[in-house]
């Protein structure tokens, strides 16, 4: 906790810096005069990277809390996280509340001192609200600091094309398709069957990286062990998954596409692949990209039954001037009532299992996906997922593997050579 003396010293330091800045430029004066002392109104800024579905909620919160005004600042995904890191480094400039995505949370929680520890604010009593793995993702390795409150999760299912399955002589009905692949070996075996009768120009899955990430995500241990050591090289699950996916690539099951690239986007519209591991947010994306194939998509369970891709957290940087107010707002925005409102607003899947019994969520079906009960499918996969330790370099390890699969798929490296350079890449980042 902070002592009042500490706070006032910080304010004095800030005023001095402002004065120096004003001397030099004359233009910064305006930004140096805010805060509760002179306005009577507290402005809370919240930095996001996309639509979190909060806008209606701000109005409600401001109404219930006179004197609070909320300003939302939205920037692009990578820019948002990069500038958050810069602001943490320089000790100023961060918003009162900052969203952090799953891919970055491991990196940021390795510096828990830069963020408010929600456990100091009594959030520990509500830890059962969240999915256990969601809670753990933003919990520091020593378990003493909780830097983020979970907003949404992705869940994971297997989206597939009924028309292409039919042409390849595979079953098309959702439950029968789910039964085709209780595990990943069965999935790749189905891939062989698909490839044998596949419509020309189509492949079984979009790209090695997508499938690999889904496989790793289900393991009890992925890239990090429980003590926070990077175990990519020694964890047999990682190598086995790599071998399974690269073998499938060698047998022509991959459309050789990388997620979130132009070619990948076009791949949906041009029907280049029959299956793709898909989180809930991707259903809206597929609907956008592949308008012409409405009703031809369906959603089955993912091999192994559990998974997650994406989702975010709200954090409160320690450098802020309105920490108590920011903590209160972050808690309110991530509370069950509001997560439900967000789900209704933009379909973001809540990260709290109590809501998974809500008929509004379990009853959700998507006509585009042949009336698949997506609400039930995605929440089930999120519920089954076991916590997996995450570390500061999880994001970079993922990039190294994605690059590795790209090299195998482009034919510039053999699977063994690509594995070695992936390891070299990761070790280079470890120095």
């Amino acid at each position, binding site marked *: 906790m902070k002592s009042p003396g500490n706070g006032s010293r910080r304010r004095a330091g800030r005023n001095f810096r402002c004065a120096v800045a004003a001397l030099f430029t004359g233009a910064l004066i305006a930004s140096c005069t805010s805060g509760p002392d002179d306005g009577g109104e507290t402005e809370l800024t919240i930095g996001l990277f996309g639509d979190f579905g909060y806008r209606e909620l701000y109005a409600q919160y401001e109404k219930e809390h006179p004197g609070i005004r909320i300003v939302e600042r939205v920037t692009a995904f990578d820019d948002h996280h990069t500038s958050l890191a810069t602001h*943490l*480094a320089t000790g100023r400039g961060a918003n009162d509340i900052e969203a952090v995505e799953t891919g970055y949370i491991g990196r*940021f929680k390795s*510096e828990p001192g830069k963020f408010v520890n929600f456990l100091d604010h009594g959030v520990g009593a509500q830890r059962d609200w969240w999915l256990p793995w969601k809670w753990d993702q933003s919990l520091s390795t020593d378990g003493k600091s909780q830097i983020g409150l979970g907003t949404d999760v992705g869940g994971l299912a297997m989206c597939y094309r009924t028309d292409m399955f039919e042409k390849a002589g595979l079953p098309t009905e959702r439950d029968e398709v789910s039964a085709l692949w209780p595990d990943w070996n069965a999935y790749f075996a189905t891939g062989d069957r698909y490839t044998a009768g596949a419509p020309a120009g189509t492949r079984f899955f979009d790209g090695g990286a997508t499938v690999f990430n889904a496989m790793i995500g289900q393991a009890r241990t992925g890239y990090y062990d429980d003590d926070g050591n990077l175990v990519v090289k020694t964890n047999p699950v990682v190598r086995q998954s790599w071998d399974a996916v690269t073998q499938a690539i060698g047998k022509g099951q991959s459309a050789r596409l990388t997620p979130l*690239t132009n070619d990948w986007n*076009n791949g949906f519209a*041009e029907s280049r692949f029959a299956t793709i591991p898909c989180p809930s947010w991707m259903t809206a994306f597929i609907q956008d990209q592949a308008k012409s194939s409405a009703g031809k998509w369906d959603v089955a369970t993912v091999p192994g039954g559990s998974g997650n891709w994406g989702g975010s957290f709200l954090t409160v940087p320690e450098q802020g001037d309105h920490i108590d107010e920011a903590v209160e707002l972050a808690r309110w925005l991530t509370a069950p009532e509001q997560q439900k409102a967000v789900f209704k607003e933009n379909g973001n899947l809540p990260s709290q299992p109590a809501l998974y019994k809500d008929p509004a969520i379990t009853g959700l079906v998507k006509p585009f996906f042949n009336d698949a009960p997506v609400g039930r499918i995605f929440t089930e996969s999120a519920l089954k997922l076991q916590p997996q330790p995450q570390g500061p370099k999880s994001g970079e390890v993922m*990039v190294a593997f994605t*690059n590795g699969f790209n090299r195998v798929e482009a034919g*510039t490296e053999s699977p063994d050579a690509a594995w070695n350079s992936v390891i070299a890449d990761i070790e280079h980042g470890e120095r």
Partner: protein
Amino acid sequence: MASADKARSPGGSDARRPRPPRAGSLVPYLYIAPFFLVFALFGLFPMVATAYVSLTDWSLLGTGPGRWIGADNYERLLHDPYMWNAARNTVSLFVLATVPQLVLALVIAQLLDWALRARTLISLGLLLPYFTSVAAVAIVFSVLFSRDFGLVNHLLDLVGAGPVDWPAGRLTSHLTVAAMVNWRWTGFNALIYFSAIRLIPRELYETAAIDGAGRWRQFWHVTLPMLRLALVFTAVLSTIGNIQLFTEPLLFSATQGNTTGGSGRQFQTLALYLYEEGFRSFDFGYASAIAWLLVLVTAVAALLSLALVLRIRSED
């Protein structure tokens, strides 16, 4: 006082030049002071600060300014295979993007001067790529050169050539990135050359023609030597720009925000590697060391291209 002496010493040309300021007068210095103030604040200070940071192990996410580690970052840099890879890519892209650009610009400028009608219209057209934002160019080229759905591969397919995975190969990716740079800057340089050519006294060409020089010899012995200043300017400018190539290779990576410059780092430049270390790995000290290496490489390359262009003088 010393400065006043110095100002007068190269004299002898007083008749043509404005008089040097009277000794002790501060006024001229005050006139130029704002520039130096702004330069000191936004130019010099960041450079000095970067030099300092490069001697520490400052991580952007660390708990504060880093420890002093002396030249460790630089030593690590010299033994870093990724740095050498990026350096090789930088040199290769520099050559592929600078030489064709300047040669083509020169040819266009000479053609414009010789024969073409509607010069104003063509000049405007030449400048259009320069108005286009780098990001737009990079995105359009990435789409044109995409493996599965690109126009270039479609055209290759029409003449029976197999599809090329442009970003995957080292040479093919370099050609694509260089094509973006060349497309954007050739017209700009051509206009500079063209306006310089228009300033060459016509009598020189007439004299040369009387002496029996054909167009090619006129170009070689009149145009080129007379363009020396323009050549120096464009060579140094494009050298600086192309050694620090960043946006094109960043956006050519198909995956948004991927800073490795291709799946095998085949088109990662030094500037992109700097960004990766600084803003993906958040290793600020190391990134600062790369920044200073980049300053050094840029300075050497600029001096080399200056020397190369100045050789034209000897044939004058």
